């Protein structure tokens, strides 16, 4: 099972001829991801790593039956790339691109909801179901097959925690980086819902950070709807107010979004919160 991506995922890489697109196409192929097509307007007919390149998403989907798209297109062109994927009836879009304007993200979100298309990201490291498929830029060597689901708003902090999990014998069912932007396609609750009904997931690690109220809503959802144990970590306990900490999502404004507020909410809802990243495996053992 796993969630969102598995051995049946057929991937089209948008921006496959670019530097990052080409590099990660190879890395994903090496891992065993089924990549069936690439798209770069104007480069149709070429090949990258033996994968056929098309000019448009419609041709790529019609010719290859791709059901998932990963986007490596620069911010300026990625808004169109996302609409194009949705109009070509793609089921899942994984948007790696960082720097898409928030207003465009709000329109994209609305459009995808009407189309019934799922998007992970933007500004996401991607998603990976170890042993089945990797659709993203995550370093495959630190992952291990298993039963822990991992959800995170961050990239490298996720790797840090996955590394700790693997070292202590906790393999993963699916790891998903939902993205660091204020407006994202798939949030904590969407992902928790999927993990709750996934037969291969027995526990979930949630990695949150300052900014917004997604973690607080997730905490209530876990209390009310989840039967599987969830443990959490929140980054940014010492972040100053009003400063943007690296990406747009991580900013505290007004009274919303401090780490202390989020941790208090998790505690109130009965979710254990690790004090430090390396404390997560121990909490999983207890739960």
């Amino acid at each position: 099972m796993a969630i969102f991506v598995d051995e049946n995922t057929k991937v089209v890489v948008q921006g496959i001829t670019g530097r990052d697109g080409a590099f990660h196409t190879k890395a994903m192929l090496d891992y065993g991801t089924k990549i069936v097509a690439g798209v770069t307007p104007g480069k149709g007919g070429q090949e990258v790593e033996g994968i056929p390149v098309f000019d448009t998403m419609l041709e790529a989907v019609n010719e290859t039956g791709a059901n998932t798209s990963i986007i490596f297109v620069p911010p300026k062109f990625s808004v169109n790339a996302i609409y194009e994927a949705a109009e070509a009836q793609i089921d899942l879009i994984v948007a790696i691109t960082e720097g898409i304007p928030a207003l465009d993200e709000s329109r994209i979100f609305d459009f995808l909801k009407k189309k019934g298309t799922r998007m992970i990201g933007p500004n996401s490291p991607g998603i990976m179901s170890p042993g089945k498929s990797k659709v993203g830029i995550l370093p495959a060597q630190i992952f291990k097959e298993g039963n822990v689901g991992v959800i995170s708003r961050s990239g490298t902090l996720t790797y840090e925690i996955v590394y700790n999990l693997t070292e202590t014998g906790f393999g993963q069912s699916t790891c998903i980086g939902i993205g660091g932007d204020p407006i994202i396609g798939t949030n904590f609750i969407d992902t928790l819902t999927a993990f709750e009904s996934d037969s291969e997931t027995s526990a979930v690690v949630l990695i949150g950070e300052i900014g917004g109220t997604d973690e607080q809503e997730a905490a209530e959802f876990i209390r009310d709807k989840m039967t599987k144990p969830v443990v959490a970590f929140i980054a940014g306990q010492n972040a100053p107010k009003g400063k943007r900490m690296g990406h747009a999502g991580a900013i505290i404004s007004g009274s919303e979004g401090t780490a202390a507020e989020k941790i208090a909410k998790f505690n109130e809802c009965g979710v254990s919160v690790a004090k430090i990243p390396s404390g997560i495996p121990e909490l999983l053992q207890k739960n």
Partner: protein
Amino acid sequence: MKLQEYQAKNILSEYGAKIQAGKVATTADEVEKIAEEFDSMVVIKSQVLVGGRGKAGGIKLAKTPEEAREKAEKILGMQIKGLTVKKVLVAKAVDIADEAYLGLILDRNTKKIVMMASPQGGIDIEQVAKETPEQIFKIYIDPFLGIRPYSARYLIGKLYDNPDLIKQGIELAMKLYNIFVGVDAQLVEVNPLVITEQGEMICVDSKIILDDSGLMKHPDYLKLRNKDEYSQEELEAKEMGLSYVQLTGNIGCVVNGAGLSMATMDLVKHYGGEPANFLDVGGSSNPKKVVKALDIITRDKNVKVILFNIFGGITRCDDIAKGLIDAIAEFKPNIPIIARLTGTNETEGRKILKDADIPVFASMDDVVEQAVNLAK
């Protein structure tokens, strides 16, 4: 990117909103001249990017041009929350009959633009939200329909009864929405929105924050960037693609990724230390970024030790190590530097550092604990 009041008002004016008449000045002479020109009572408003200018004495009323000069002499050069006032806006005073609030933000939860109005104008909207939340009215705007006159009418109807004011208010609401989407804003706010004794609707103060990611669509606005918003170090970091925020501790941190950077600061604190900064070198492996990072951190004289915490994904550990060696050769810092390198090309990276006698640790906990000990 935050804009100054006068910059925000210029945009308002471009879009046809009626603003309080005013001119920018940098000297007391200019202020006096502008006051003479207006031939009326004026308000002298310091142009700095912080709230609470009035309370700090950065906004003053003057009845005559002479008084305007005196007041301007005091305001120009004064410090408000650590920022020096270099510019003032000299605005023609208006007779206020009513003050309201009108603003737009992008709401993370509904992922829609929300327009807010409150009859409680002239005070901080966060304060209104806390004390009298029932005095804030909202409409959520469909991203594809945009604002429509009927929803603007619903909102403005919460502010005024007079049909003429409602009409003016609807027009203003539509203009503010056009600004919000036209410039890719994060915030557009008019506070206070004033009705004068003569029944005229005027935007007396305004705040606009632009979405940094939207600036690629509006390169002209880049020149509006105020140096005051960031320190010299923050600006240099930005140019190099680094995110840097200075803090008050003595442990310098160089990390890749925002989440891991924040977690590293938290861990420093957890082991009893104080982080000197947040520094995210970002996702690429350019050794020049590491050189710049060290350049910036070593300028902070509080820093007693620098720790590198790198988890290589896209970032390659050997590139970071090479950058660090280059940086040490260039800046010859006389404080200890320690590192943790895990992930892509960790073996090569660790070897480079070991050959240069830089202590390398296997885990994030180990490197942070050691840094805390060295800073004591």
